[in-house]
Structures are given as structure tokens and as C-alpha cells.
């Protein structure tokens, strides 16, 4: 990039280019409509994938962008899920309002716990996130009179969406609903990434030591993104209950936290689409190998993790980025 003293470089040029919607992005979102026409018998799965993608996106915001390694993100997913489940058991099953309440309750939990995690880094932080997740799981397990324990909640009934669209076994409503919610949340995330706050988060990830030295209140930033992420995870949790009318301890489990981490890493963290791509790959693969004993599934997942760390550290999207030289929007 050369410059003569006469040329004025438009400093915003490259930044503006990053904001623009790349044609591949548009194609991707159009492609999410394909299951309606080409895989109508897989709409339930597609709905599960959309929800997993949303959950992975929420993790990406704290892990890929702010650098917070969490082994307990299922806490917020489960919080959203159980809130919806419990309220519906009390008799109120309107999905949109339940979604909002589920999101808010997860957000509240996220806000409170954000004060606990914000001052820490490295192993201490990892342990605290793990501890919070396990704590909530244990609490839910013990309070089986409330949560239904290992069997889960019985009698969850969700009313038709907008009073017209029933959540049936075919999954049309489920997938449409999940896809729209995913897209809306995605738009919010995309905006956030390209905002000054998004830049600050990347600053924290890139060099947490330098941030206070330029006057950044890192802890405030971390608490904010953690809360936002918890809200999004709660939305995902709420969606899964609304579309499947079941909720059990599995929603709060370490497996759930580990799975979402794997999905994000497979796709590539810090690249906005990583969680979505990773979820598609993971969930489709899991569906294909659903006959296989869960033990053996985790063997291959383990091997995949080892392989990714050793050979493909930025996941699928990172690998693609290296391959395609002309990938315009240089994702951070």
C-alpha cells in the first residue's frame, strides 16, 4: 500500500468494506431456506441446528471476540429453557412472551455471574465458569421437586405461534420460528461486532494488559458482553423448549457446554459465522451417526479436537480463509 504525499487515503475505506454484506453471506442466508423445499422431512433437525447455531453464536461473542473461555455456558441455555418450561407448566404457553421472559431470566443470571467472572483470566476464569455451570446443574438436580430432576419437566405445553401456527411434528413452524429468531439475533450480533464495542472486545482478546493502559474499563466491557451473551443463550434455550416441549437436566449439563464449544471451534471462533457453520457440521454429522454408541461418538469428537488444535487452529472458516485469497471481508 503506497502513498504519495498528495494522495489522501480514505481511512474508513477498509472498515466500510467489512461492514458490507458479502455475496457469500447473502447466498448463505438464502440457502437456509432450502430445507423447506429439498429436505422437508428434516425440518425438525434443521430447527435443532438453527437453535444450536444461536447458542454457538452466543458463545462466540464471549470466547471468539472477548477471549473468555467458558466451560459452563449451558447454565444460561438451561436457565432460559427451564424458565419457559416452568411458566408453561403454570398455564401460560404463549411462545413469544415466553421467549422474552426466558431471555430475560438468563440475562439476569448472566448479569449477576458476570460480576463473578469479570476480574479473572486464565485457569481461574475457566474454573469459575466450570464451577458456575456445575453448581447450577447440581442445584437443579437437587431441586427435583421443581425441575423434575433427571426425568425432566412433564406437561410442558406451548400454544400455537401468533395463535395460528402450531408446533407440530413436521417442524414447519419450528424451523421457520427458529430460523427467524436466529437471523434477528445474528443481525444484532453482526451490528455489535462492527461497533466501537465490538472493537473494544477484540482489544480485550488481543491484549488484555494493554486495555487499561489506553483507558478502557475492561471489566465493564466484559460484564456487558457476558450479559448479552447470556441473553442470547437463554433465547436458544427457550427456543428448544418451545419447539420440542421437553426440558431436562441435559440442558444444563457439561456435555451441552462442551458440545457448543466444539461446534464453535470446528467452525472457527471470532469469525461471526463460525458457530453457525460448526453447528451445521456437528449436528448433521451427529444425525448421520446417530446409530452409533455415544461413547464412540465422543472418541471421534476427541480426535477431532486434537486434530483441530494441531492442524486447523482457526476451524473450518479459518482454513477456508487461508485457501481463498480473495476473501474480501477480512474477518478479525
Amino acid at each position, binding site marked *: 500500500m503506497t502513498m504519495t504525499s498528495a494522495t489522501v487515503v480514505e481511512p474508513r475505506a477498509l472498515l466500510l468494506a467489512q461492514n458490507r454484506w458479502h455475496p457469500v453471506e447473502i447466498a448463505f442466508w438464502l440457502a437456509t431456506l432450502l430445507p423447506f423445499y429439498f429436505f422437508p422431512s428434516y425440518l425438525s433437525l434443521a430447527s435443532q441446528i438453527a437453535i444450536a447455531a444461536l447458542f454457538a453464536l452466543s458463545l462466540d461473542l464471549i470466547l471468539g471476540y472477548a477471549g473468555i473461555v467458558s*466451560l459452563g455456558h449451558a447454565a444460561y441455555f438451561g436457565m432460559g429453557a427451564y424458565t419457559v418450561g416452568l411458566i408453561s407448566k403454570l398455564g401460560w404457553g404463549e411462545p413469544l412472551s415466553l421467549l422474552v421472559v426466558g431471555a430475560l431470566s438468563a440475562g439476569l443470571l448472566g448479569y449477576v455471574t458476570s460480576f463473578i467472572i469479570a476480574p479473572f483470566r*486464565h485457569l*481461574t476464569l475457566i474454573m469459575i465458569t466450570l*464451577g458456575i455451570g*456445575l*453448581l447450577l446443574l*447440581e442445584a437443579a438436580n437437587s431441586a427435583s421437586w421443581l425441575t423434575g430432576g433427571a426425568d425432566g419437566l412433564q406437561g410442558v405445553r406451548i400454544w400455537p405461534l401468533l395463535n395460528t401456527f402450531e408446533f407440530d411434528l413436521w417442524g414447519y413452524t419450528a424451523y421457520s420460528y427458529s430460523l427467524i429468531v436466529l437471523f434477528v439475533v445474528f443481525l444484532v450480533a453482526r451490528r455489535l461486532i462492527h461497533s466501537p464495542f465490538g472493537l473494544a472486545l477484540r482489544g480485550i482478546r488481543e491484549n488484555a494488559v494493554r486495555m487499561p493502559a489506553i483507558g478502557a474499563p475492561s471489566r465493564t466491557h466484559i460484564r456487558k458482553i457476558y450479559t448479552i451473551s447470556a441473553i442470547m443463550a437463554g433465547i436458544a434455550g427457550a427456543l428448544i423448549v418451545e419447539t420440542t416441549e421437553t426440558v431436562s437436566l441435559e440442558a444444563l449439563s457439561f456435555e451441552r457446554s462442551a458440545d457448543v464449544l466444539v461446534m464453535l471451534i470446528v467452525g472457527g471462533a471470532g469469525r461471526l459465522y463460525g458457530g453457525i457453520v460448526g453447528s451445521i457440521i456437528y449436528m448433521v454429522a451427529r444425525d448421520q451417526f446417530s446409530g452409533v454408541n455415544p*461413547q*464412540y461418538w465422543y472418541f471421534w469428537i*476427541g480426535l477431532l479436537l486434537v486434530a483441530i488444535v494441531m492442524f486447523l487452529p482457526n476451524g473450518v472458516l479459518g482454513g477456508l480463509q487461508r485457501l481463498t485469497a480473495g476473501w474480501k471481508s477480512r474477518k478479525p
Partner: protein
Amino acid sequence: MIGPFVAVMFDGFAYGMLLFLMSVGLSVTLGMMNFVNLAHGSFAMIGGYVTVTLMNHLGWPFLATLPAAFLVAAVFSVAFERTLFRRLYQATDLDQVLLTIGLVFMSIAAVAYIYGTELQPIHVPDYLRGFVTLWGVNFAVYRLFLVAVALAVSALLVVGLEYTRFGAQVRAAVDNQRMARGLGIDVDRSFAYTFALGSGLAGLGGALAVEIVGLDHSFALVYLVYVLIIVSVGGLGSIAGSLLAAIVIGISDTAGKYYFPYLGAFLIYLVMIIVLMWRPAGLFGRR
């Protein structure tokens, strides 16, 4: 009234000593190299399965399997360290976590494949069974044995650290790696030996644990959590910290489950979070 209380305390103490054996290696190696090795639980599990295999399939006496458990776990750890871990000493926490979690998953699946998912049967020799009555309280012989072994190991570790040249090198490397290298200490080699030793101890702990807590394929993950809690609470690189934390966790867990079964494992997670918030580097940690 006193009887059950002392018994519970002793059980918790014995459990803590077991956890100490499983944790001390991770604490020291984390303190030395800052390498987050979540596969440590797998080494403990391997030790357990070695003992079970040697006893049930090859008829070895229990005590003879203990050194074997130590050695096999140590050998596995050396293999992993050579091939995988040493490339990641400068890597991010996340990468280390992912790699070692991947290994944990693989080890759990491998063990489930070979041995199935049931609890592994074990029959410790008669002289280690039963109770002895001291001061009106019944103490389980096996637990006394456990405490004796753990104390012997602790004594050896302390003596080794304080009085041998190797120990001095380890202490220097934990204290200040850069300075230790500058003084000409071969930190990498010290680390390799320490890592093997620590993993071997975990294997020994796993072998001893079979009789107390049972062994199945989920052992690696379940006890990983306990080990991580102890290491974080005790402080990285501190043997005394691991010992204290292990005893605290062991007693809290045992007493907690006995007196407040409703709380279950809840209590130790809460203890951990509170301790870490008060002292992020652990009770005896630095930084």
C-alpha cells in the same frame, strides 16, 4: 454422637489424601509450565484400569499392581508429552484446554470400548479389609492404608524437593522459569521428569481409588473436576496448597454428603468459587 462425627471426618480426610495423590502432579506441572492439562484425570483412570486388569485378568496381588499403575500412567504421560503437549507450551489457554479435553474424550471412549461401561470389580486382599477400633471409633483398614501411603508419598516429595538437586531445580523452575533457564537449569528436562512423576502419582491415586469410589469410564471426567478444584484452590505449584485444599475438599464433600445430602456436590463448587474470588491464585499460589 462423637463416633460418627470422627468417622466422617476421618473418611473425609482419607478421601482428601486420595485426591491429593491425584492432584499434586497437576499442581506442580501447572506451576512450572502453565500448561493446562485436563487429561490429568485420564492418567488417574489409566492407573485404576491397570490395577483392575492385572488383578482380575493376570492374578497379580493388589500391592504389586500399585507400582505398575504408577509406571504405566507415567509412560502414557511421557508419550503424550513428547508427541503433543510440548508443542503447545506457548499456545493459548483455549488450545491447551481443547487438546487435553479431546484426549480425555478419547481415553474415556477407548476405555469404554475395551472394558465396557460397568463398574469394575475389585477384591482387595483380606488384610486390607475390615475395621480396626481405636479409641472407641471404627476406622476402615483400607482407608488407614490409603492415608499411610499418601503420607509416605508426601514425605518423599517434600524430602525430594528440599534435599535433592533435582528438587532444587524444580523449585527454581516453578518460582521463576526465566531466571531458572538463565541460571543454566534445563527446565524442559526437569519438566519432563516432573510431568512423568506427577502423572504416575495420579495413576497410583487412581489405582487406590477403585476400592473407595469405584471405577468406570466416566472416572476421568468426574475426578478431573475434583482435581481442578483442588489445584485452583490450593494454588498452582504448591504441594502444601494441594494437600490443604485436598483435605478441605475431601472433608467438605464427605461431610457435606453425610450431613446435608440435599446439597450434594453443590458445596464444593461453592467453596471453590468463593476461595477463587478471595484468592484468585489459590490459597498458596503466587501472582
